[in-house]
């Protein structure tokens, strides 16, 4: 594929709001995870909650979209001049020529979970409950489309934890086909009870902080996050490049990765091929690295099969937590930060490296000029997506 310019990007996670706060936390090796609960969930574990989401007030004209997921989206959109950058793109390309493709897994489902606690005597949902702008999976893209006053193609990709990586592919294809000149991509997933209790029911939630690549890793820590990137057909001053996209399916099991990472291997190879690159061209790999025993083992084998074991790599989920449907976008943009600042972020929380895992896993930050990064995102239902990102 032809490289696509990323002209503005921003991300908000438990590490902080915006790029500067994220970079500072990565440089300091600070985690955003904390040993606490969410609402009244009686689960022991660590959570990557974004500060200040509850206090966000949506603009009057967007008030119907009010829910935790769209508040988190708005908090992220207000950082790093993103809204102004989209307005400028709209003036340049036209509102009909800009697409909106966002990933989420649970959208505003928390709103419905809470509404079920306050059902009226006849069983109906509380007065004022709004389904389409909050619970529906499309809500966050409808919200962003309305916020930016765009009228181009838009949809949500919801393929669990690969959602917001795959949207980069949707935008690139639509741009290549000439249907659009620019796109807002990324993803938003916010904390809710379904995912906390759900991952707990599958025994994939760690009671300890998540420890990707550790011998004693016992599962993931859930976080929330939002990421937005503006892709444009042309730019004089890109912040980075989308160079390649690879997508595949395991066709193996709904909630367990293929043991040899067969689908993951296909996604990485396709991403490299679409970028016209060889494995040796990649300077650093941002792993999916959820810290479940099976993910890290399968991903270690898959990456080794494609790259060998010398390419530096790490998972940043020890810092952000697993932001689920937002993870692909969050990690693509952490990869862009890494490219811009020559920083390979070390993976946090490793006490005892797993001797069975063979990759060159970084446990401390490493500074080096970086040109190209591969970012992996894998999800339930066996969906895999790999992105290749390049320095400006």
């Amino acid at each position: 594929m032809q490289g696509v310019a990323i002209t503005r990007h921003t991300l908000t996670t438990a590490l902080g709001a915006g790029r500067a706060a994220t970079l500072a936390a990565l440089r300091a090796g600070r985690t955003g995870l904390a040993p606490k609960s969410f609402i009244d969930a009686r689960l022991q574990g660590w959570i990557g909650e974004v500060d200040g989401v509850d206090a966000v007030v949506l603009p009057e004209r967007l008030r119907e979209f009010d829910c935790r997921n769209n508040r988190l989206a708005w908090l992220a959109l207000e950082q790093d001049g993103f809204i102004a950058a989209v307005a400028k793109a709209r003036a340049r390309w036209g509102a009909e020529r800009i697409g909106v493709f966002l990933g989420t897994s649970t959208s505003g489902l928390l709103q419905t979970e809470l509404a079920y606690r306050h059902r009226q005597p006849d069983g109906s949902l509380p007065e004022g409950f709004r389904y389409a702008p909050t619970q529906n999976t499309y809500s966050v893209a409808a919200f962003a489309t309305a916020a930016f006053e765009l009228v181009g193609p838009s949809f949500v990709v919801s393929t669990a934890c690969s959602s917001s990586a795959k949207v980069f592919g949707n935008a690139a294809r639509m741009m290549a086909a000439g249907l659009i000149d620019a796109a807002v991509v990324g993803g938003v997933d916010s904390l809710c009870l379904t995912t906390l209790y759900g991952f707990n029911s599958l025994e994939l939630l760690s009671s300890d902080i998540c420890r990707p690549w550790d011998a004693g890793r016992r599962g993931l820590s859930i976080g929330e996050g939002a990421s937005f990137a503006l892709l444009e057909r042309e730019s004089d001053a890109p912040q980075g490049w989308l160079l390649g996209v690879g997508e595949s399916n395991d066709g193996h099991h709904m909630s367990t990765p293929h043991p040899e990472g067969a689908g993951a291997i296909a996604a990485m190879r396709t991403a490299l091929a679409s970028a016209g690159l060889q494995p040796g061209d990649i300077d650093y790999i941002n792993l999916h690295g959820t810290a479940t025993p099976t993910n890290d083992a399968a991903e270690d084998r898959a990456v080794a099969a494609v790259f060998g074991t010398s390419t530096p790599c790490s998972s940043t989920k020890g810092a952000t937590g697993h932001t689920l449907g937002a993870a692909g976008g969050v990690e693509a943009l952490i990869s862009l930060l890494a490219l811009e600042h020559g920083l390979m972020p070390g993976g946090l929380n490793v006490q005892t490296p797993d001797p069975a895992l063979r990759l060159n896993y970084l446990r401390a930050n490493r500074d080096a000029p970086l040109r190209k990064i591969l970012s992996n995102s894998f999800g339930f239902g066996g969906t895999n997506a790999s992105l290749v990102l390049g320095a400006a």
Partner: protein
Amino acid sequence: MTLRSMFIQGVGLFGPGLPSWPDSQATLRGETPHQFVPTVLPPPPRLPPAERRRAGAVIRLAMAAAEEAIAHAGVDPQTLATVFSSSGGEGSNCHSLCETLASPDPLISPTRFTNSVHNAASGYWHIAVGSRCSSTSLCAYDGSFGAGLLEAATLMHANAEPLLLVAYDLPYPEPLNSVRPLPDNLGVALVLTPTPNDRSIAALQVEPLPARLAAAVATCGDASLDALRTGMPAGAALPMLQGLARGLDCTPCELVLDYLPQLKLKVRLAAPAASHL
């Protein structure tokens, strides 16, 4: 720039009063009035026993439509990339999870949680047919069929590889049904190929058009069928399926399908050979 033509090789249809693609022809052609007969979802025979036990309504609906399209097309499903699109996945599963999570002791079933992901149908399908081809799962609320068709056409333009498009929607039980009323289950599936062959039914070209430039969205004629078109997100496909059922007697058929309030899809149906010139 227009998207390259693709070719419809198989159709699956499963909804109220639309029991299958062949058995819906007379209704779609307007020869017999549409009658709203609620759907009964068949079990998915292709799934391994463990997955079949866990397969809820959303899996059974999407797979019923997909299986029919595959059989009609006579293709090996293992070779097909897939685009799944739905407004909301399995309503009864969502309701059950929300009820449990509102209770004092919210221990939820791992199967219910796994089946709650929007891409559950796609995940089960790829397991059933043993496919590692790429797959996506989309949502655009009432525009979910349009989103799926546009993405299918874009993928075809980019990769020129055969693919399976499945659009499916299921109703919620109360209390969610009151805030998102959907009358029944509806699934539509198309097998699409980049080049015509002797099994091709029609050539299909898709063009997104701003609502301000588009002609009026095509309707179904039959009032009961048109209520499905407007009442079910996947129903947006029905005018196009009517064009196919009528044997393209309007060739070349141009009609506008609903997608988003601000954006419609102009689709052009033609005989597969004619469009190849």
